[in-house]
């Protein structure tokens, strides 16, 4: 048989039926559901007199609009409350497992799936959320879908899909100290552009990817959609299996061993063909900071805000001009001279235990700059929160002047009370710096957790590689 990619193997294993010239019907192994994009799907289902086909393969959670403090008090947001009530009712009627906001396993959907072991190699996983690409870190085929498709999966446990093209992004060599998974993926997006992955499923490979922890691989896969890719994946290996073993929904004992031996066969065969290939050298990647209004508008921390005149293409030039106007930045400004109002550490990109450990390591024994209005840490799940607290990370953050919150999407999307006020500037570990993403008129700079932590201490960006935490150096 011809050598196959990881993507092709999973695709083929899930084709229920196909006819030439038509999309294939593929089976969906896990359907993750949240309050934001599901109510209309459940209503549609009900209106058509249909039922949820596989409630046992469907997992629901409240994350997008949940408050991150005072969760035991009645909700002040009536509209959000109605949406939570709808999810609760829909899950109850259909027999779908729901992690509500009071559940000890609650958290951001893309944090709890892997954390609970719902996410496994070789599976097809969908969710009405574009950052579903996160789960590809385990060697699963995972992608975001619209609400009509959510309804389709609820009703049929299948999706009608055209096969995507395959792209390999190979990151060779070793990343320098202070350079993290977030910097790798921002550098990739900076290289291929925010539409560079459109129509493709990206497989990340190379030494620098292999050396990443599962948390790091999730950060990379999470932002595949920010390059326009349908999904991002990393072939499962010993790092994957070690992370998975013992998690609640992962098979145990002999079953686990059998699963591992199957998962090992998922890796792309030597000589398999990709439609497109991109290579980067990890040693040359510096910490990244976005300066504009999409994740592809990114610079090295040692760099400057670009001059729109330097863009060859007229359309890019106009986009850069508009971005700088929105961001209130002057061309030529040193990235490290950009002052900040707030810092947000959280989101499905960077809110896992490793992220919190790295950020805590940076702020331990120090204090956030006086000029800062708020520094917020929002753990990705209640399990992450509990683990972090057992390690004393909450105390480190709080002594340093950070607020320590309950888990949810929070200021990544600002659907709860955690909103970036208009005109303010935020260093954020999240995934999107679109206009108004964190709050109307808010200005977002995407960075890694370590970079966000150091920026909180200094009140402006610093190059984490040479920073020793002595303010005013």
């Amino acid at each position, binding site marked *: 048989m011809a050598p196959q990619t990881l993507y092709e193997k999973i695709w083929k*294993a899930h084709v229920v039926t196909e006819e030439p010239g038509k999309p294939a019907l593929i089976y969906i192994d896990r359907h993750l559901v949240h309050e934001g994009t599901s109510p209309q799907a459940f209503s549609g289902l009900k209106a058509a007199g249909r039922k949820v086909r596989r409630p046992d393969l469907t997992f629901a959670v409240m994350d997008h609009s949940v408050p991150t403090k005072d969760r035991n008090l009645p909700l002040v947001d009536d509209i959000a409350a109605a949406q939570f009530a709808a999810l609760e009712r829909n899950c109850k009627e259909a027999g779908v497992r729901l992690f509500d906001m009071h559940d000890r396993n609650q958290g951001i959907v893309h944090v709890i799936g892997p954390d609970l072991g719902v996410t496994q190699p070789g599976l097809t996983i969908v969710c009405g959320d*574009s950052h579903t690409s996160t789960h590809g870190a385990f060697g699963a085929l995972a992608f975001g879908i619209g609400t009509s498709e959510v309804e389709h999966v609820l009703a049929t446990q299948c999706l009608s899909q055209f096969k995507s093209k395959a792209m390999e992004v190979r990151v060779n060599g070793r990343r320098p100290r202070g350079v993290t998974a977030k910097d790798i993926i921002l550098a990739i997006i900076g290289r291929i552009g925010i539409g560079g992955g459109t129509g493709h499923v990206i497989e990340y490979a190379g030494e620098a990817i292999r050396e990443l922890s599962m948390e790091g691989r999730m950060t990379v896969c999470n932002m595949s959609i920010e390059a326009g890719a349908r999904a991002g994946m990393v072939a499962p290996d010993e790092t994957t299996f070690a992370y998975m073993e013992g998690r609640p929904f992962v098979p145990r004992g002999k079953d686990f061993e059998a699963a591992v031996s199957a998962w090992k066969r998922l890796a792309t065969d030597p000589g398999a063909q990709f439609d497109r290939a991109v290579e980067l050298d990890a040693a040359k990647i510096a910490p990244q900071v976005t300066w504009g209004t999409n994740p592809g508008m990114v610079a090295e921390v040692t760099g400057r805000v670009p001059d729109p005149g330097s863009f060859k293409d007229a359309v890019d030039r106009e986009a850069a001009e508009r971005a700088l106007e929105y961001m209130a930045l002057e061309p030529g400004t040193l990235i490290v001279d950009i002052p900040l109002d707030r810092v947000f550490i959280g989101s499905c990109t960077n809110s896992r235990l490793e992220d919190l450990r790295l950020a805590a390591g940076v702020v331990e024994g120090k204090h956030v700059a006086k000029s800062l209005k708020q520094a917020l840490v929002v753990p990705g799940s209640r399990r992450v929160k509990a683990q972090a607290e057992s390690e004393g990370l909450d105390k480190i953050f709080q002594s340093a002047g950070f607020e320590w919150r309950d888990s949810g999407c929070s200021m990544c999307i600002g659907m709860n009370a955690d909103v970036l006020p208009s005109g303010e500037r935020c260093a954020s570990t999240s995934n999107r710096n679109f206009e108004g993403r964190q709050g109307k008129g808010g200005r977002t700079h995407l960075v890694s957790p370590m970079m966000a932590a150091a920026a909180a201490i200094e009140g402006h960006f610093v190059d984490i590689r040479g920073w020793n935490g002595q303010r005013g150096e």
Partner: protein
Amino acid sequence: MQPFKKHRGLVAPMDRVNVDTDQIVPKQFLKAITREGFGRTLFYDWRYLPGEKPNPEFVLNFPRYKGASVLLARANFGCGSSREHAPWALLDYGFRAIIAPSYADIFYNNCFKNGILPVTLADDQVADLFRRLEQKEGYTLSVDLETQTVTDDSGLNWKFEVDPFRRECLLNGWDDIGLTLRFEDKIADYEKGRNPQAPVFGPLEPPR
């Protein structure tokens, strides 16, 4: 879903690249539990001043584009979030067709589920349309899915490509779920073939 066969309508420009779905429908409107009424929320942060007063500088508020139903856009339209609220808002506002050089995957897919036709034309063709639109107030285009053509009143007649299956679904307004349920036997066979006891907890079959 309402079918799309042919539509003739006033064209409005959205002359920006990479218009993301956060701009098409900002997050504060994702807490709704119905599909209705999203027209008001379309391009909300660009379209309104405080107090929901129309921003006179925003293109869709220009009197000449009032009643537009064809949106002329730039590359990578609809990138970012998967929110289907974006096509719901476009449709509820009155847009039936979009013309752009490229679209983000999820948004493109979502359009077909809602009776909106996203037409893809080459960069230079789209640039040409932007020029024509600027020059002529009341510029109108006809988008015909049956013949796969975009035409105007002064003789412009361009073919566009669209996947034949998507075309057929949209022409007929077929219910996607209904289409899939015709394969109920195959779905059931697939389910029986692997891991029938406990798919969530049990071991997984190796990929075939």
